[in-house]
């Protein structure tokens, strides 16, 4: 267990490095730069700016400089939001994204898994069909449809929940969290249903039935853990994506999360900001995949080896 974690964290370092270097180079290859605007800057001003941000150095030099700073925990200054550091921007936006994403994740795992299991126990009956149809609909509906729709119904018509910005209580979280979580809930429900329905036909379940074990005990003791393996493998990367901000949801609900920096940073060629967000995202993906692997190991001891 400890060895697995250590090994995975060690292999994460070259992966992260490769991602950073690749994003760095790709971004520079793309035309345009942070100081290209409607009105061209005077050549002297531009040269001064580029020198200040180190853009006049060769590309390998810049990469090296960036990496050495990153090693000290410094993401550098933003090139577009003047006077802000990337670390500062992320520190301000990440908690909002984490909260929304966390809500979405909670909804997706609790509601998705229970709905999926419930449907699997009624496989082939009408309840199963209805539930799976609903799950398919949820996965198919994009958040820019469900988000405004939920805001319209629960915010404007019923007036139960705020539709924009943050407030002191937690109620501002509900609508964006739900809107973000619904498609994932649908996917999780389908995976959990397929997992359990497949598991219930397995030989070891028949062997347990042959021993006369009560159906609920069979479910809890023999079927549940193997049935959740596909859910775990999906939720790992999905969690990373949910927690690092969703630009559509943040825009619809007017929330200052991380997602918009991703988009705006890329559009503005704000190199340090994009790299900062990419690094964070990549790190979280690696971390959550490790979580997913640890959960696999718990679900199925065969995965603990190799």
């Amino acid at each position, binding site marked *: 267990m400890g060895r697995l974690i250590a090994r995975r964290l060690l292999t994460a370092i070259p992966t992260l490095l490769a991602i950073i270097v690749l994003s760095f180079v790709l971004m520079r290859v793309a035309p345009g730069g942070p100081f290209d605007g409607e009105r061209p800057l005077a050549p002297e001003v531009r040269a001064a700016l580029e020198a200040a941000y180190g853009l006049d150095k060769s590309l390998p030099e810049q990469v090296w400089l960036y990496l050495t700073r990153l090693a000290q925990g410094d993401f550098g200054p933003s090139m577009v939001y003047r006077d802000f550091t990337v670390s500062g921007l992320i520190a301000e936006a990440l908690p909002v994204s984490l909260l929304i994403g966390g809500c979405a994740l909670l909804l997706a795992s609790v509601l998705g898994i229970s709905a999926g299991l419930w449907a699997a126990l009624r496989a082939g009956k009408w309840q199963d069909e209805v539930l799976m149809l609903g799950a398919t609909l949820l996965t198919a509906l994009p958040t820019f449809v469900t988000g405004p729709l939920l805001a319209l119904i629960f915010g404007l018509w019923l007036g139960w929940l705020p539709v924009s910005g943050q407030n002191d209580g937690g109620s501002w979280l509900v609508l964006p969290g739900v809107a973000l979580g619904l498609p994932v809930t649908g996917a999780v429900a389908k995976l959990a249903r397929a997992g359990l329905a497949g598991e219930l036909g397995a030989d070891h379940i*028949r062997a347990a039935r042959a*021993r006369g074990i009560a159906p609920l005990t069979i479910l809890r003791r023999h079927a549940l853990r193997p049935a959740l393996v596909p859910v775990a493998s999906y939720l790992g990367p999905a969690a990373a994506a949910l927690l690092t901000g969703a630009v559509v949801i943040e825009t619809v609900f007017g929330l200052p999360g991380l997602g918009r920096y991703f988009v705006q940073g890329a559009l503005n060629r704000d190199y340090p900001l994009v790299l900062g967000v990419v690094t964070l995202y990549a790190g979280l993906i690696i971390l959550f995949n490790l979580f997913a692997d640890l959960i696999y190991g718990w679900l199925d001891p065969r995965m603990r080896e190799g």
Partner: protein
Amino acid sequence: MSEGYVVRNLRVCVGDHVIVEDISFTLSPGEIVALAGASGAGKSMSAMTPFGLSAGVASGSARLDGIDMVGLPERELSRIRAEKVGFVFQQPLTALTPHRTVGQHLHEAATQAGGAKPTTDVMVAMLDAVGLSRPEERLAQYPHRLSGGERQRVLIAAALAHGPRYLVADEPVSALDAALRGEIMALLVRLCRERGMAMLLVSHDLAGIEHHADRLLLLDSGKVAESGSAKQIASSPATDYGRRLMAATPRLSEPLSPLPETGEVLLEVEGAHVHFPKPGWRRGRLDAVLDASLTLAKGETLALVGGSGSGKSTLGRAIAGLGPMASGTVRWQGELLPPRQRRSAEHRGLIQPVFQDPLASLDPRWTIADIIGEPLRWLAPDAERHRPAQDLLEEVGLPRDFASRKPASLSGGQAQRVAIARALSANPEMLLLDEATSALDPLVADGVVSLFGRLQRERGLSMLFITHDLALARRTAHRIAVMEAGRIVECGSREELFANPQAEATKRLIAASG
């Protein structure tokens, strides 16, 4: 209350299909009754359906200690299973829950009928009774750590943990290695005799059960074809079906049938080594075949016999150029055959394989004519390919109009004949038969074995016959090579090998097949 298990006029349907019709038998306390027959005869369905463990619906009556189980709700059936019956299934690899340890399985099994929680000592004794080595360590192990044979022992221990009066064993040994089958079957029978349990045994392997069962029912298409004492049916079956089944089952005791004459030596393999890198991070290699040498003459059959993992398939694949070979030489009529990729099309045509699972080795989207014609694809233009395909179908005993069908519409035996026709279309000198009959039903397998015999007589084919079944090897092969742990430990004519076995592995195999 009348003791025993009494089945009268049992009928089993799945949907609208009648799978089992009008089967009656009695299992008295302490008795062993076997249900045997070809696959699809309804053996497992008749055994499992009354207990509520199949997809079928039973009618008629099945009284266990006086209680008719037909029509009982699942709750009551479940209680009867928990209290009175132990079950052993065919698939030891998958019948244990992967995330539960051996100890947890035994604990659950011992308490299934409300019995006392077993102490560690009791569980160790259970594992000891089924002959599992180092039982103390096993309790904390997960099933994937155990081999197939070990898992089947654990399953038997679990089936007995609550002290049942009845045991239902559905093909308990057919998924196991040949060398283990006899041992596990003997264990089951000994435990039944010692504990006075009655056993309902389902098996397609007549040779494996005829000495153990008290009574035998031969099922044919859901009906009882013949029933009576096992000894009597084995020695002199009364029905034609019984006679065919008995004749299809190879035995070491049967008289040797003549085999065709052989010619000059064609294939010479010398010092073949095959190894694979060990999986995982650590370097190392797994020696699959070590210094194997053999020869094969024209029109000769050489059987490669051994347990699973002995390297027999790997050696066969290396010879045919289908798998890697690290060192050693393969010569054909004195000419060196290069290792796999560098073998020319003509060289490849010389040795053609037939594999174990016929349906898995045929592309489901192709027609039979295309499958058989594939080796001819660049030897003959399209229009001319159709006729040889139909001729080949006829040669392997299939109707000519099969050419337009797809593999999914074939039975296992028909599919295997198509695979043989495909091998023949390359006009080979030698066939590599890798467990080519072991996935088939005894009657069907016997038909395919006779087809090999006919092809050998008519075409003068040489055959490398890879099998785990020593009795089958004795029936079909001129010479037998025994493999163990990657080495050929003994090789000789079938007469010599059985008259005077030298290697320990050979003696063990003979003992296990006897």
